[in-house]
């Protein structure tokens, strides 16, 4: 018997995610059994299995994404841009620089 990790894709737009494991003596049995262990309630549209021994965890997962400041390449580094937009628009309008031509929408 071996442990076979089972992966599911919830809908066609979703990535494959880990949902659990089955104990089975070989691949054929693992595929047959994974169906009813994890998919009998219609939980996914795709099913993959892999030997646990073939899957490996990275060392120090808490350091994933780095530990020094990386906000320059993440959304949280740019939260001020909305406010900046408002401030710059209002400043340039008051300096008479903005071009007020007809435009859709408004």
């Amino acid at each position, binding site marked *: 018997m071996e442990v076979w990790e089972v992966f599911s894709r919830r809908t066609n737009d979703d990535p494959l995610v880990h949902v659990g494991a089955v104990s089975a003596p070989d691949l054929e*049995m693992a595929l*047959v059994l994974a*169906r009813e262990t994890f998919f009998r309630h219609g939980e996914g549209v795709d099913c993959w299995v892999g030997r646990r021994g073939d899957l490996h965890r990275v060392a120090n997962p808490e350091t994933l994404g780095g530990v020094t400041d990386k906000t320059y390449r993440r959304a949280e580094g740019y939260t001020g841009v909305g406010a900046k937009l408002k401030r710059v628009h209002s400043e340039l309008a008051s300096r008479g620089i903005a071009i007020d031509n007809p435009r859709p929408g408004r």
Partner: protein
Amino acid sequence: MSSDARLGLLLAIADDELVIGHRLSEWTGWVPYVEEDLAMSSIAQDEIGHARALYEIAATINGGTPDDLALGRAMADYTHAVICERPNRDYAYTAARHYLYDTADAVRLEALTSSTFKELAELVRVLRIEERYHLDHARTWFRRLASGPVEARQRFSDALADALPEAMTIFEPLPDEDALIADGTLPKPGEEMLAAWLDVVGHDLEEVGLERVMEADAEAPVGEVLPTSSGASEVADESPRPLRVPGLERRDGRWVHTAGFSGAGGRSGHHSEDFAPLWEEMTALHRAHPGARW
């Protein structure tokens, strides 16, 4: 076309599915391999669900509800094959019966896809999708046990030899078979489907070196099947003789049956001693409270 004949066909298949589904569902909760418990339970539910779908069509002909048909008929009105009512025994017998039943059902369903009975043909196309997975499962266990350790192979092959003659009764002709063939409701007669099935099973068994399962039925004279237990040696003239299945032989590299069925078995409502307790357990609560909602 007599709607009675069509009703008879629907009920025979539905009863097969219900009774075998009932037996398989008895494994839920204590199969000695947890993941397999889950797989077998889904198969059992599928069979009961297929029965329900067939009873739904039958109810449009007969009147009443699917539950009336499934749980409200007298014992002698059920027309399933004897193999379905046998107790599960151990997992070797269960796996053997599962393989024999699902391979036979596959032959039957394939034939019915071209039935002139439109509603049945449409339903059958859907049932075959689920039955494919039942077959995959049955074949996986067939290979595992037949090619397994000594005791597994022995138990499994003994179980196959025991179950094979009773599985043949799945193809016992219905009383109205001629009429059903004449109008295309039944595209193939029972004997022709039996032949196709024996070919498949014979081939599968030879692949794993278990010809002896077929040979066991060939050596004995045609098997006397059922009913058993009463011990009566004098049989009244009007009551039908028990069903006897054909013998088998290997001819030109294939396994074939050597004669037709004789007597009357499950398809005429004649069941073994195992059906009475099953029927009682399955229907008692439903019958005890007529008209109640649950």
